[in-house]
């Protein structure tokens, strides 16, 4: 047939033959267009003076005004300090701990005991930050158990209201985050360790390697690519500083060490109604996060040939 030789007709025939599949795919594409791409278009309000009464296209352009305002904002230094501080400490403490935990858990011989520890360790992952906020508020109150214990041990001589003091906020945030996610983050490493060939351990044993040496020279190198991928992902999400957690634990008393970019966007945008300014701060964050992702990806590619893209 003549028409089948025409590539455009052939393509159209294939699409018709796939009409059910195309419907399924396009439903997803339409959803992504509405819920992912329209908000991306909405970012242009960061460069406009958006007014809630008018539409986005009617709003006048103002260029980089909002970005300049953010850089000159009294809160800028503080917000950046908290965002980067909390994020980097979380990255450098919170990232290696699950790997260490997985390495040592893997050395437990009894399978039943290992399973039990694992199941217990990721239980906190399933609690919400709201519930955890309640637990922490109970523990850290001036009549709470932390003060009781520290006073009994003579570490402190007066009860401290931890959540009301900025200097304790980072410690609380980082410790509670590690507590919640340690076991859960370790799952992926344990699964990767389970995939390491037993012959490598046997060979190492014959060479006279001890338990630590086997961990260091066999297990770790074997799960290197898993570690790299997860590290890239952790770096790209570093500025997200866990909004849910911050929102639950922050209050006006600890604001000087709890106000992070995500909260500031929420505060200026939804609480104060400065949509354009707030969108500009959000975009500022997204761009930095994207740059960090690209850097981490390149570094990982150079160092050990593993990358996301």
């Amino acid at each position: 047939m003549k028409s089948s030789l025409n590539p455009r007709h052939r393509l159209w025939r294939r699409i018709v033959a796939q009409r059910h599949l195309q419907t399924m795919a396009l439903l997803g594409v339409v959803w992504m267009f509405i819920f992912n791409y329209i908000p991306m278009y909405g970012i242009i309000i960061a460069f406009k003076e958006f007014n809630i009464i008018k539409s986005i296209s009617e709003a006048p352009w103002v260029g980089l005004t909002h970005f300049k305002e953010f850089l000159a904002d009294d809160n800028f230094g503080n917000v950046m300090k908290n965002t980067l501080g909390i994020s980097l400490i979380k990255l450098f403490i919170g990232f290696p701990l699950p790997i260490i935990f997985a390495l040592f858990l893997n050395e437990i011989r009894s399978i039943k005991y290992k399973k039990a520890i694992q199941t217990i360790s990721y239980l906190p992952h399933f609690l919400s930050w709201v519930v955890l906020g309640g637990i922490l508020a109970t523990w850290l109150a001036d009549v709470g158990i932390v003060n009781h214990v520290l006073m009994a041990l003579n570490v402190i001589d007066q009860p401290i209201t931890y959540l009301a003091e900025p200097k304790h906020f980072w410690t609380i945030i980082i410790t509670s985050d590690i507590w919640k996610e340690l076991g859960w983050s370790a799952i992926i490493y344990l699964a990767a360790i389970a995939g390491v060939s037993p012959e490598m351990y046997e060979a190492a044993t014959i060479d006279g390697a001890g338990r630590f040496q086997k961990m260091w020279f066999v297990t770790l190198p074997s799960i290197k690519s898993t570690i790299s991928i997860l590290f890239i992902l952790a770096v790209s999400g570093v500025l997200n500083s866990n909004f849910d957690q911050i929102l639950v634990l922050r209050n006006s008393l600890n604001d000087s060490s709890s106000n992070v970019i995500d909260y500031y966007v929420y505060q200026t945008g939804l609480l104060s109604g400065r949509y354009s300014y707030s969108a500009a701060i959000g975009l500022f964050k997204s761009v930095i996060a994207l740059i960090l992702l690209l850097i981490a990806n390149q570094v990982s590619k150079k160092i050990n040939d593993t990358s996301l893209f």
Partner: protein
Amino acid sequence: MFALKRKTTGEVIFDLANNVFMLCICFITLYPIWYVLINAFNDGKDAMLGGIYWWPRMFTFKNFEAVFASPGIMQAMWITVAKTLVGVVAHVFFTAMVAYALSRKDLVGGKIYILMGTVTLFFGGGLIPTYLLIRDLHLLENFWVYIIPVLFSFFDLIILMTFFREIPEGLEEAARIDGANDWSIFLRIVLPVSMPVLATIALFHGVYQWNDYFTGMIYINNESLQPIQTYLYRVVAQSSSSQMMVAVQGSALTKTVTSQSIKLATMVVTTLPIVFVYPFLQRYFVKGMMIGSIKG
């Protein structure tokens, strides 16, 4: 031979230290949860004196009675159950449907669709543009705001797609020869053989739905539509515990329960369903997480 070899002193010390280390981790993990539990089961006024560390001193169900007697909490609980059930079914079905189509290598436009999705993994509109969209779609003060904006997830799609590609092609071809179209292959063959990965996605999304308080906080003002986590957030974070006490005021309960004890009981009630569900699903999600994060 190796198995019969006796352990060296170093090995014995290592194993002992490692076991102690693991027990410490288990204690640190469980004790804060246990502490909340025993205090929730203790008389509220008595608990204010402190010193309850291992076991309830004055055991009582009164705090839970107060929780279940409060219409606000029960309504919030019902909204949470509804949004979790509807949300999980809708999200898993919709995402799996799109994933099935995109997992087919012969799909016209497949590469473009996947590229479109990949962009969304790393870049998004952010809070304010999303809020404006939700407002323009008239989803404010609307139950469907819990379901529709999270109907689909490209991250979950990658996990599902990887799994679907492993399904032997013969299975689908046999059905096609029998006259099945793509919809019936998806519904009758792909979905049934993919239960482990569907369970994983269901668990992830179920936990998200159950624990999410932010959606209810920014898009919903109507109290009869707010989920239990938003309700709890307003009580815990804003310390407006008086809200909870209103429910029990004037009843006989006022004598023993305190706002603090009701708060703890609410936390327990909020968490129990999820703690009961996860042991049944856990054998699936290790597999699911591997598929998604390593190969994807």
